[in-house]
Each structure stands twice: as C-alpha cells, then as structure tokens.
C-alpha cells in the first residue's frame, strides 16, 4: 500500500473544483487512457490576466486526482505569469509530498497547467517538440532533460518515477542513461535547444489516441446503426488490432468491414502505413 499524506487523502476523497468550465480561457489536456492517467484542466482568466477559476477532470489514481485538485486551488487568484512558474515540486509539496513512484502525477499537473496557459496565450508548447525517447509513454528528450534539471534526478529509476519514461518495455533505458549523463555533466547545453526542435514522429500513444478519435467519430456511428460496435485492442507499430462487437461479430462480412471500411478510414485520417487486423 502507498503511503499517502493526510493532505493527499483529503484531496482525493473530497476533491476541489471538479468539472469543466464552459467556454474556458485556456484548456490543458494531457495523458491518455492507455497511459493510465489523464487530466483535463480548464481555466477562466480575466482581462487583468488573473486566473479567476480553475476546474479539472482526472482519470487516474489517488495521487493524480489529489495533484489535480490541489493545483486548481493553487492557481486560483494567481496571475498567469505567477502560475507559469509553478513546478511539479510545488504541487508535490502542497500535498505534503508524494511517494517517489508517484511523482509523475505532479508532473502531469504541471504539464496540464503549461498546456492551458499556452492555449490561452496562443502559443505552441516547447515540450511537445523534441524527440521521442520513450515510445511507450510518448516522452520526449526535452521533457526528460527538464525533469532531470528541475528535480535533480540522478538515476534512470528516478527519471521513470518522474516522467514515466522507461516504465513500459524498458528498451529506452540506455538512451535515458545517456541523456542523464549528458545533462548532469552539462554537455547537452552546448547544443542550442532550438536546433533540436524538429517535427515529432507519431508515438504509439499519439497513434492510439488518434485512432480512438477516428473510431469514435467516423466509424462507430455507422456500425452502431447496424447493431454492431468496434473496440480497439492494441496498437503494435503499424498493426492496429481491433475487435468487432455485437452484430458485427457474427457478420460474415466482418473482414470486408475491417479492410474496406476501418482500415481505409484510419489510413486516410491517421497514418498511411496502418494495417488493421481483427483480433483472433
């Protein structure tokens, strides 16, 4: 069992500011269902640049919910500039600390806040640039470097605790170690950050998210009309594994549905190289 502070317990059991502001001044949407945690933060900001209201919706564990709740309390009444300075460490200490394995929950709060402020200011997030290092959780080198510096991280394990990078298949561990060494020795600063800004490849997670969106918007309504449904089972590289449900399941035309309809749509709207297969 995790050791949660009273403050975490309190914010988890009785969270503040749950919901979604209608017509928000800024929205920050981070994480995904596949990751196991996601946060949608909406802010109301007045003409003097003061955050007058903050609301959240969170899918995740106790510390994710508590981090979101305490964050909305913290930013309410702050100027946007002040809020922009909040770090994940600030969020964690407002909760009286988080277990080290759960620090990524506070990082998610900070990321949502940054995204909401960038949305308000009409800016593009710098962290969304950079190069993907951890494909399982879609973490970029810039995010990792920032976490190492901000939280004085000294091991790959700590990087995983704070950013989730390396927490899936573990294939990026060597790369993480390399980034850690370079960052700690100060070498990476020799490369100007903007040189590294190149368009991001699509990560598995972005792919999953995009595919889910297209399934929901373009494909499900048609299938449901016929009493069927489709479920996304897995995305493995370019292979999209789906399962047909309801009337579609027993339909002899299911293979045609998948290839002619689902695959075509996903190739058109997500990625040309996708191959859709039915789960056996």
């Amino acid at each position, binding site marked *: 069992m*995790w050791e949660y502070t009273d403050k975490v317990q309190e914010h*988890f*059991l009785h*969270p503040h500011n*749950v*919901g979604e502001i209608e017509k928000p001044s800024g929205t920050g*949407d981070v994480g995904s*269902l*596949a*990751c*196991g*945690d*996601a*946060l*949608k933060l909406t802010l109301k900001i007045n003409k003097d640049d003061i955050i007058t209201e903050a609301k*959240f*919706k*969170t*899918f*995740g*564990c*106790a510390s*994710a*919910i508590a981090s979101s709740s305490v964050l909305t309390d913290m930013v309410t009444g702050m100027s946007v500039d002040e809020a922009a300075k909040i770090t994940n460490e600030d969020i964690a200490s407002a909760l009286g600390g988080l277990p080290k*394995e759960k620090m990524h929950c506070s990082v998610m709060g900070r990321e949502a806040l940054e995204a909401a402020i960038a949305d308000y200011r009409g800016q593009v997030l710098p962290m969304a640039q950079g190069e993907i290092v951890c494909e*399982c*959780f879609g973490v970029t080198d810039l995010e990792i470097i920032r976490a190492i510096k901000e939280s004085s991280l000294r091991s790959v394990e700590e990087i*995983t605790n704070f950013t*989730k990078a390396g*927490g*899936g298949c573990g294939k990026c561990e060597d790369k993480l170690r390399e980034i850690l060494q370079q960052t700690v020795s100060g070498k990476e600063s020799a490369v100007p950050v903007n040189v590294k800004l190149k368009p991001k490849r699509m990560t598995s997670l972005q792919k*999953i998210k995009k595919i889910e969106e297209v399934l929901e918007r373009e494909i499900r309504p048609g299938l449901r009309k016929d009493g069927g449904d489709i*479920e*996304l*089972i*897995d995305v493995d590289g370019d292979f999209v*594994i789906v*399962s047909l449900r309801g009337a579609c399941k027993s339909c002899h035309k299911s293979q045609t549905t998948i290839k002619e309809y689902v695959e075509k749509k996903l190739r058109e709207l997500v990625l040309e190289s996708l191959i859709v297969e039915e*789960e056996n």
Partner: protein
Amino acid sequence: MASANPKTIYMDNNATSRVAPEVVEAMMPYLTESYGNPSSMHTFGGQVGEAVKTARKKVADLLGADPEEITFTSCGTESDSTAILSALRTFPEKRHVITTRVEHPAVKNLCDSLQTVTGHKYKVTRLKVDSEGMLDMAEYEAALTDDTAIVSVMWANNETGVIFPVEEMAAMAKQRGILFHTDAVQAVGKIDIDLAQLDIDFLSLSGHKLHAPKGIGVLYIKRGTLFVPFLTGGHQESGRRGGTENVASIVGLGRACELAGEKMAEENGRVKQLRDKLEEGLLAKVPKSMLNGHKTARLPNTANISFEFVEGEAILLHMNQHRICASSGSACTSGSLEPSHVLRAMGVPFTAAHGSIRFSLSVYNTEEEVDFVIEKMPAIIASLRKMSPFWKG
C-alpha cells in the same frame, strides 16, 4: 490499527487468507513447549518428527497423493523454481520450456530469466489466451517438441480465477515424455484434485492461500520423477530440500489441508453462490462494467470485474473507506506503470484494464458482506466517473 476486526470485509483471499483458528490452535504446541528438532535422536525431537509425518499425510490426502510425494518448501515461489530448474538439470540437452502468457510472476519471471540470464540458451514458448482467458489446445499441441524439457502451466489463474485443462495437458506432455509442472497455488483447497489419477509430475502449493500461515509451501513430486534439489544441505525431506523443517507451519498446513477437504463442498456451494450474487449484483447495478475471464471454467471464489473509464487504485482506496479489501490489475496498484499482464494477454481494452477489481472470497465471507459491497460500489464508481474526462455519462 489495521486489525481485521468484524467490520473489515475481506475479499482479497487470492492475495492471502486468514489463518484458520483451528490452524493456530494446532500450531501452538510447536511454537511453545514442543520445540525439538525432528531429526534428533531423542524422543523429545522424535515426537515433533511424528507431527511432521502426520501433517505430510494430511497434505497428501487433500491432493490424492502419497505422503512420500510431498516435499515441504518455504513458499509457492520456491516450489515453482525447484520444479522448473530440476527439470532443466535432469535433461540438460533439452532447451525448450512451454508456459503461458498469464502465469504468476513466480513462473513468468523465472522463464523470462531463463532467456535473458542465460543469454537465450533456452527457448520459451508462452501460450496465448483468448478474450476469456482460455488456452488454444491446438497451439499447445504444436508447441510440444523433442527439445521440450518441461511444461509449466498454472492450474487456476490468480487474477481471473480461470481454470486451465491441466489434466488433459499433462497427459499430452506425458505421451511425448515431457515433464509437466503446475502452479496450483490458487486451485488447491478450492477445487477437487486427485493426483493419483493424473500425469502431473510437479505441483506447487502455498499455505497462506488456504488458511495456513505465510512462509510454508509444498512441492508435489510424482513417484518416479527424476529430481535434482534446489536447496542443497541436510538430509531433511528425504534429501530433496535441505534446511530444518518449519515445524509449526508444517503442522498448520496439515490442519489447513484437512479443513479444506472438509469445506470443499461449502467452497463450491455457499461461497460460489455468494460470488455469483456479488458478480451479478455489480454487473447489474454498475453500467459499463464487465466480467474478465471465462464465466464457468473458473474458481468458485473469484470474480474479476472491470469498471470502464475509472482507475483501479482510486476505486480500491474508496472501497478502503468502507473497509472493503480487494485487489486491482491497474498499473498504479502494482508499482509498475502498465496494467496487469494477464488482462493485456486477454486483450482487455485499456478503457477496462485500468479499472479492473478482483474480488476473491473465502468460507469466512457472509451474505451480509456481499450485500454491503453491492450497495456501496455503484456510488464509488459513479463519483469517480463524474471526474473522469473519458466518461460521457
């Protein structure tokens, strides 16, 4: 503080179970006045040896085995490692192991390490499961080769309770002269097992899953099966496992096996009815909930239910407020960042895998407790869904 007082509703028996009061009573003399070493020459120790012998007989009776086929170990994990490594040492020329994708870490991680630690000296086939958690017997048959040293397949899954056809699988292995091991930690005491009739060479069990204490396990080794010990040392356990016997726990396990035999009918009658009531109640009262695992080929005490669009740890901590104890297959509860390998192998979608809760009952549960859980769960799920960005309720 966290004592299991009458208010605690314990539905996490696949994690561990209450030590039966009868078991504690049977153990007490061996934690107090009867402290002799069973190997000693004097009567004081010899009497303790007698108690170990009686316990061995009781364990054997529950399994339909001979006492000489029973070796006491420290836990289920030790039994698993002992069986698999013994097979590999017995047939050093064979380099193939068959297991499943849904094994307990005790077997799964051992098999993984056979590949990684030995520099891929061993080939491991991990059998797939379908969406109900069942194996494809054709895949299994095709996987059996002359190079296969051992098959290790769990009897019942700890997370879903799904029961595998190990009787049939053991017979198929035997036909080709391949050793067969089953991790029966979750099955023993919950379903009838008669090893005398079966071709199973090794079976692991763990005391604390059937109301004996933690720290005691058994490896069944079929008579005539070639065996190489894991712990080398003294002549205890007929030279099959060195180390002075954990006498009190052995005696406790003997008593627990005796009780399990007596309560087998209740387990498959009353406990199963309670489980069914809980499962049907929750599936009916909570929208977008679903059962994970085969509906019928399943242990009588286990129900694994997914509540879509909410996260397992958050559910568990709300249940904890009502002193209801259960487990989850979500990423956050495991300390890892990914949800249960069992649910992923079954192809349970992410929307559901993160929100899976395992309820595992025992003979100590009551109908009032089941009613209480059915009453409390819908509000817990609804409150978490209200704050989930994915819930479009």
